[in-house]
């Protein structure tokens, strides 16, 4: 590779024949690839598979709960179902869905590098993930686990007879996969930015990926070793958390949440990065308060490490501990508030396009606000007493995780789909599914807030003692069917577009950013023909010009039936 730096003009290059997808066609060239874009595709396939398993479990849970006495599962099977659901969704889907797919794909391109710093480490991380996922799937098919995704001791260490050991070994290994990706991102973002790409010209997606990686590096080792201790306890009887040995079972919770609270920010920060990109692009203007948005990511990452005790308000920690954790939890909500308002004001004086990704982004705003605000009920130590361990929690975290992260993930996938695969999907189906997801989602999880307030505990298989709760469960199940359709649709039309979709131009959204302006769709293996030099400013959109151009387009364009349609 030449090391001379050449500036290319920000001009759409002619569609090149060779790209990273068709560079080589053998299976081996995929399985041994060190190309970050191919690894992103491998990850996309793997996490979709895991999401499918998690969703099947979700469907089972919902179906089962429509009747106060259940419909087809035994209590044991039900416990295994929600445990599998939680494990798949959290450890094998959500914590890495965005970083490992879109992050992997975009980090080098957005900063103007040819690849991540350590391409082979990147491939290793995918293999570790796959091995881990296979181990966990084996453990699920050999009988499953029944301790929930939180694996509280001593239930998980001493009392449960299920396949916890194997499952935890799997999660342990997947931790190293996360760490490998985190190391890679940190090194890449620090050292491999293109000339001119200073910290405050980075796309916000990069800022939030960076914040996420920092959390991963600091948190993952702790949960890895904690879960490993449970394995050792089960396998050899070491007994670090056994009350019988003078050990403290509550200590496990401290160590677990020390990671797992930051982990919820691992899940939301990349989503927030995506939203910043989508809102700016489809409002055709610069983000409102770039630095505030960038720093709020770092603030969330930092403060997020100090609030783990809010999961343990009534776990026998002292009153003072509870009060302090409550205080910090209120504080950690502030940077999120900053982001929400900055996004909203970005619409002002913009030229708002209601394309599919934008609809997902607006959906994200609507749902994340509710999810975040209901987090305040839980951050408030007194209100948490009655709500903890109930469906209120379930509703809260689905609002932020599904309503927040998955909405953003889908938005991001739609946004970068043309870049990743060089094909356009159908705008009509895209918008329709975004709306179905939004509606179905609220239908599914809003009733659960009420259920929780009424006192329905989570992880309950039966509620025959309170049949009046059934109506909400039925609503929730109906909603989840709608939601399920909303999730299956993209799987269908996106796959379909791979074959039948219209070929995408290099920059179908007329967006700003190195990935749009300097690469072809899909990019070539080296990403850039020549190393780019970044000169302008980030999010260099012009709403006035955009609207003027729109007026110039004479035909009455039905939204979506424009340039981007099939």
């Amino acid at each position, binding site marked *: 590779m030449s090391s001379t730096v050449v500036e290319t003009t920000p001009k759409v290059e002619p569609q090149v024949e060779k790209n990273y997808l068709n560079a080589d066609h053998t299976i081996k060239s995929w399985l041994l690839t060190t190309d970050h874009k191919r690894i992103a595709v491998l990850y996309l396939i793997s996490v979709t598979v895991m999401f499918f398993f998690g969703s099947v479990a979700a469907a089972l849970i919902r179906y089962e709960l429509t009747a106060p006495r259940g419909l087809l599962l035994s209590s044991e099977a039900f416990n295994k179902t929600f445990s599998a659901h939680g494990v798949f969704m959290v450890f094998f889907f959500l914590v890495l869905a965005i970083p490992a797919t879109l992050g992997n794909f975009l980090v080098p391109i957005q900063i103007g590098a040819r690849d991540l710093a350590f391409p082979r480490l990147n491939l290793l991380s995918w293999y570790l993930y796959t091995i881990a996922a296979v181990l966990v799937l084996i453990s699920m098919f050999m009988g499953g686990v029944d301790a929930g995704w939180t694996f*509280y001791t001593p239930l998980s260490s001493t009392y*449960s007879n299920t396949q916890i050991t194997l499952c935890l070994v799997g999660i342990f290994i997947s931790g190293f996969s996360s760490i490998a990706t985190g190391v890679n991102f940190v090194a890449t973002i620090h050292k491999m930015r293109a000339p001119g790409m200073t910290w405050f010209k980075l796309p916000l997606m990069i800022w939030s990926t960076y914040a996420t990686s920092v959390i991963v590096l600091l948190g993952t080792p702790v949960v890895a070793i904690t879960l490993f201790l449970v394995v050792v306890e089960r396998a050899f009887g070491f007994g670090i958390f056994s009350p019988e040995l003078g050990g403290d*079972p509550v200590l496990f919770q401290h160590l677990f949440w020390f990671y797992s609270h930051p982990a919820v920010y691992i899940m939301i920060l990349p989503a927030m990065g995506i939203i910043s990109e989508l809102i700016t692009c489809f409002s055709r203007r*610069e983000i409102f308060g770039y630095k505030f948005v960038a720093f709020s990511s770092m603030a969330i990452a930092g403060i997020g490490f100090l609030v783990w005790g809010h999961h343990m308000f*009534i776990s026998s920690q002292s009153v003072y501990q509870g*009060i302090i954790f409550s205080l910090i939890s209120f504080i950690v909500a502030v940077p999120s508030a900053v982001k929400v308002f900055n996004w*909203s004001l970005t619409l002002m004086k913009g030229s708002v396009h209601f394309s599919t990704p934008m609809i997902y982004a607006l959906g994200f705003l609507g749902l994340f*606000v509710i999810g975040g605000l209901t987090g305040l009920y839980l951050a*408030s130590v007194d209100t948490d007493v009655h709500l903890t361990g109930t469906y209120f929690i379930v509703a809260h975290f689905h609002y932020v995780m599904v309503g927040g992260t998955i909405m953003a993930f889908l938005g991001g996938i739609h946004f970068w789909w043309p870049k990743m695969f060089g094909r356009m999907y159908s705008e009509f189906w895209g918008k329709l599914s975004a709306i179905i997801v939004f509606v179905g989602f609220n239908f599914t999880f809003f009733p659960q807030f009420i259920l929780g307030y009424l006192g329905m505990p989570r992880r309950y298989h039966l509620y025959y003692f309170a049949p009046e709760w059934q109506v909400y469960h039925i609503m929730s199940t109906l909603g989840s069917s709608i939601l399920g359709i909303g999730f299956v649709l993209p799987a269908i039309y996106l796959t379909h577009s791979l074959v039948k979709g219209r070929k995408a131009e290099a920059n179908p959204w007329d967006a700003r950013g190195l990935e749009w302006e300097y690469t072809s769709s899909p990019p070539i293996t080296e990403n850039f023909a020549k190393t780019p030099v970044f000169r302008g400013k980030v999010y260099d959109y012009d709403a006035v010009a955009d609207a003027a151009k729109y007026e110039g387009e004479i035909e009455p364009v039905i939204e979506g039936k424009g340039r981007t349609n099939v």
Partner: protein
Amino acid sequence: MNSGLFNLIASGIFQFPLMPEQASEGAARYDALFLTISALTVLFTVIVYVLVAVLAVRYRRSAKIDRSNPMTHSTILEAIWLGVPLVLGLIMFVWSATNFIKVRTMPKEGKEIFAMGKQWMWHFEHLDGIRENNELHVPVGVPIKMTMISQDVIHSMYLPAMRAQYHVVPGRYTQLQFTPTKTGEYLILCAMHCGTQHSEMVGKLIVLSETDYQKWQDNGGNRFRPSPKTMEEAGRLTFNEQGCANCHTNVDNPRAPTMLGLMDSKRTFTDGSSTIADADYVRESILNPERKITAGWENIMQSYHDQLTEEEVMHLVKYIQSLSGVKGDYEKSEFPSDPQATRKLNTTDSANREQSAGAAQFQQTPNSK
């Protein structure tokens, strides 16, 4: 399922309950805060929705509107939405913390109940010895203090109508308080996943009027045979049966310290540390005496780890507690010279300094079993 759904609609009981029953003193206080936060949540949700909707529609691409000179940042605005949530958050926090301190302050007066969680049932014991499983009778209007422990995994005692909940942990006592204000039957739930039948670890909290409760109590708890022993008595029996009294007599002796006046007194240990003796300490002293050796004695007491059930330990704790007001012959030991301990003994407990029946029994225990 569908027939169930059909029935539900057909019978017209398709109601949408919105609030759990308010049946304790704390419940109203709780709901006030809850509803305030709800109001704020609705307010902010509406603000954001309206803001986004108005802006998105107003500045939609096809709108003819002035888009020049967009604001790219505004320190004032950003300060506002950094400050307002922070201040509102702090207000909620102060309110919540005040409530929480009230909730977590155990009543001095009132009724004490021991609860034990085990996979998958609740076991309750009243001071007068009445025992109940998965059912708890309490009188209305009296503060209830529950001391809880688990025999196996972590459970959570959850009383939605009382807005009360606390985890029940193996290896240590935890506490919970509430004051029921309405008679009736309420749910007792376990809200911490504890294994297969977690969702069946459900009981009934029965709040009775003063007279009904009296009747129930006089009946020995209705369906259980009248219990011959109060918890204290049961504890004393265990104390004697287990041979505790072989060493622990009414005075500090070279073998072992006395149990009289032990509870709530300051204990100093061989490593120089000290603690105020509470239920957890006594429990630990019985099960793992070697953990803390009281200064002045040898570590000769065996561990009763495997000899006693949690229930028996609870009885013993209760029994030893009942001896707290009783002053033994302290002159011979080291710690009464500690001013704090002496003050405790002299003031707080002076009212019931007379030796209780339990203690009288206690004195004649050696070898009388």
